[in-house]
């Protein structure tokens, strides 16, 4: 792989810490890709086509490409061969809803309107601080495609307005669903073991949480409210 002066300016400890984070992201990208494949199949079974299905299928492919990109960066920073994770045991998340229609809505809302939207806001916050040209290009590609991943759910809601009972059910669990994502983003394990390296795309925990909160408050909640899904509104 081509040498990178930004990488070489780091200490061996910093390089290894960054490499480990990219390696972890390989797995999460692959998991998200498999989840989008599963979501695409479920959308198709539910008779959902058009832009929603097309975006979902493209998202599955793009997440696999993101994983390859993360893998390259893990090897670049670590100066070592990085093994690809074994994904054979992956299983889709089940939310335990008895009605398939509601189960699909909860999964779609969580993966796209919440998770991918947070990811988009977080990537944007990272890009503002990145100085490494190679990492900036990687994040820019991620963000551009992440927007379409989030649009799967937003387009679904716009094209297929949920019934009143689905909206009530989604509203009732919305705050918990959002908080689960916020908590995961704040997990210490997601951050470098040493100091943050925003020039290389690794924000401090505080800055990451700020970006997540801003996205939740300025994009996710107002966007869902537009479709009649409001945290805590479990009665109508």
């Amino acid at each position, binding site marked *: 792989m081509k040498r990178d002066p930004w990488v070489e300016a780091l200490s061996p400890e910093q390089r290894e810490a960054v490499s480990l984070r990219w390696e972890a992201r390989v797995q999460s990208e692959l*998991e998200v890709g498999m989840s989008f494949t599963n979501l695409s199949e479920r959308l198709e079974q539910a008779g959902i086509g058009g832009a929603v299905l097309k975006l979902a299928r493209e998202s599955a492919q793009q997440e696999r490409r993101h994983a390859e990109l993360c893998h390259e960066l893990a090897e670049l920073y670590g100066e070592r061969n990085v093994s690809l994770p074994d994904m054979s045991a992956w299983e889709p998340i089940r939310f335990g809803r008895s009605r398939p229609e509601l189960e699909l809505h909860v999964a779609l809302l969580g993966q796209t309107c919440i998770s991918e939207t947070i990811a988009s806001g977080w990537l944007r916050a990272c890009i503002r601080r990145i100085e490494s040209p190679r990492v900036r290009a990687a994040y820019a590609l991620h963000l551009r495609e992440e927007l379409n991943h989030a*649009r799967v759910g937003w387009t679904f809601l716009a094209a297929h307005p949920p019934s009143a009972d689905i909206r009530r059910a989604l509203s009732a669990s919305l705050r918990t669903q959002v908080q689960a994502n916020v908590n995961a983003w704040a997990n210490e394990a997601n951050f470098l073991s040493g100091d943050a390296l925003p020039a290389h795309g690794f924000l401090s925990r505080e800055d990451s949480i700020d970006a997540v909160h801003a996205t939740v408050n300025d994009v996710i909640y107002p966007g869902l409210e537009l479709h009649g899904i409001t945290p805590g509104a479990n009665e109508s």
Partner: protein
Amino acid sequence: MVDPLYRALVLAALGLAGCESTPATDAGAAERDTGEESDVPADVPVDAPLGAPDTPISDAGEEEDAPCPADAELPTPPCYLIL
């Protein structure tokens, strides 16, 4: 101020939804429907200031409200959280 991300996602999706009856909707539809370029800086200006949250949510690890019974059934989704 409306967050550019809100425009790029929520409002763009309203335009995309109009394409639902056209199975051949292509990947660039969102950009065209919003009159935006597909490149990131034009789509979501990375230098655009974030609006101040007017309804802050709780800090990570804190719960504002006790979860309703339906919430308790929700597993913490482990796999699709990062990117």
